[in-house]
């Protein structure tokens, strides 16, 4: 059932493009401009992915295609496995002792679950921004330089730090205090620092796990504007509880919920405008119209 639900809307996305999202968006139209009108290129493909914590199945049989240079939003009620699924894409959940997953996640045609794949190498190509801003207790400069350093970056670190901070729209705020602790910044600035830190490693995909849930509306808007800017170069997958955010900021929306067995699954996915205005599934409609969750 999931497969059918997930395949059809994606094909439609090809014809519609992310265009209709603009209609919903409160953003300046320039930022959210569609990048491609041709058939989207998929960077990440989840094929029949299931996630387990010990004997408990948290996510079952998920198929998702993540389009390149677009923002894909994962929405759904609490506990439906959105974060688990997101943290599976960069193999972050490998750090949880009882965790294991099944299926395939293809990144540029390579299966991330394959035996010979090193999770450390995966995370260098699939970056992540967390729910709570988590800068290191180091200087702003060192926070950004950390990733490139552990990745053996050979170029000019000062330049890279500046570029990354500029792309994260933080440079003007911090250029005079690069030696101050990253923790001295405000919540929104900290989150942009974490984004700068992630960009500095130059990943192909950036995963964002409710990146605005700890921020005030002004900072939230800044992050959303930043995301619209970043998708020109990166592919973004964002988990959000905030449906307005998904509607405003994303191109594609994936709606998940959980079944009787508490395992999360994908109900419907498609262009954001369609999911919010014309969902095919009753569950989706109930959720986006606020009757559930």
């Amino acid at each position, binding site marked *: 059932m999931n497969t059918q639900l997930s395949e059809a809307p994606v094909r439609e996305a090809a014809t519609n493009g992310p265009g209709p999202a603009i209609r919903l968006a409160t953003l300046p139209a320039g930022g959210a401009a569609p990048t491609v009108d041709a058939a989207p290129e998929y960077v990440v493909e989840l094929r029949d992915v299931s996630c387990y914590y010990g004997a408990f199945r948290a996510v079952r049989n998920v198929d998702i295609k993540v389009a390149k240079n677009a923002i894909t939003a994962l929405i759904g009620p609490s506990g439906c496995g959105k974060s688990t699924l997101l943290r599976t894409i*960069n193999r*972050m959940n490998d*750090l949880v*002792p009882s965790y294991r997953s099944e299926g395939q996640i293809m990144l540029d045609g390579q299966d991330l679950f394959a035996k010979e794949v090193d999770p*450390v*190498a995966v*995370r*260098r190509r699939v*970056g*992540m921004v*967390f729910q*709570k801003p*988590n*800068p*290191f*207790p*180091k200087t702003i400069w060192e926070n950004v330089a*950390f*990733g490139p350093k*552990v*990745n053996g970056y050979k170029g000019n670190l000062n330049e890279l730090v500046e570029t990354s901070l500029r792309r994260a729209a933080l440079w003007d705020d911090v250029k005079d205090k690069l030696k101050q602790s990253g*923790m001295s910044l405000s919540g929104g600035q900290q989150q942009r620092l*974490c984004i700068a*830190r*992630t960009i500095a*490693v130059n990943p192909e995909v950036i995963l964002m796990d409710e990146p605005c849930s700890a921020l005030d509306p002004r900072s939230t808007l800044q992050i959303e504007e930043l995301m619209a800017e970043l998708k020109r170069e990166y592919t973004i997958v964002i988990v959000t509880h905030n449906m307005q955010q998904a509607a405003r900021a994303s191109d594609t929306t994936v709606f998940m919920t959980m079944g009787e067995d508490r395992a999360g699954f994908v109900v419907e996915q498609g262009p954001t405008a369609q999911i919010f205005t014309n969902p095919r599934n009753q569950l989706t409609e109930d959720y986006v119209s606020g009757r559930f969750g």
Partner: protein
Amino acid sequence: MTTAARPLTRHRPLSERIIEVLLFLSAAVGVVTTLGIVAVLVFETLDFFVVVSPIDFFTGTFWSASILPRAWGVLALVSGTVLVAAIALVIAVPLGLLAAVFLADYASPRVRTVVKPILETIAGIPTIVLGFFAVNFISPQLLIPLLGRNNIGGFSALAGGIVVGLLITPLIASISEDSMRAVPRGMREGAYAMGATRFEVVRKVVFPAAISGIMASIILAMSRAIGETMAVLLAVGAKPQFTIDPTESVQTMTAFIAAISLGETAQGSIEFKSLFAVGLTLFGMTLVLNLISGWVVRKYRTAY
């Protein structure tokens, strides 16, 4: 009933006042005791310094309290203490920190719940038992076969340093592990998410973030090593001498105090008074270490 009927004046039942006094007295016991100890130490030491010049005491390197000619150079005892503590730290710091890193970031929860209590049990072994272990195992079974009978005797600073090292390893491991575990998971994840390996995460994120607790644990362990008595009393012998040779038998300040105060030293004699001078010196050293420890914790504390 209207609100105006309820009085706004002070009303404290007797039980409230009694408990306040009791709590204050309990807190006061510790303070009064400390002040009393310091007063006695200072008073007796001043008495000692009437006979022996403080300059000779603090700069002399020969110590002979009971055998004539007497000499009161406390540096002989200080060097024994520092030597034993240094050896102990050389052993305990790497061992303790590696154990802490293992427990905090490498061990599975199941391993940790088994290993940590066992490690902490070592700290609970009566130190006299460890001293006995040094005399009957470390020296004859380990050090003498290893270094040769001509190079090391049955009592040595090395044997004492090793047991004290074993004694303070759990202290360093336990406190350091607590402070490493207090580093939020999010901070570790942030580093992992950028492609850091586990060792990089430990070395570049967890360790620096936990540094205040780690430093405090080391200084606390140092203070403990300097104050340790029974194990060194047995292990290092009773030969006060100014040396940095770990194979020599030495005498530490604490061991001297224990040895002399248990003997038939006459109260009011010069040996008796020297105990207080040595005690005050020891007290000063550990006090300074504790103050440094407090300062380090405040200076390097990271708010997460």
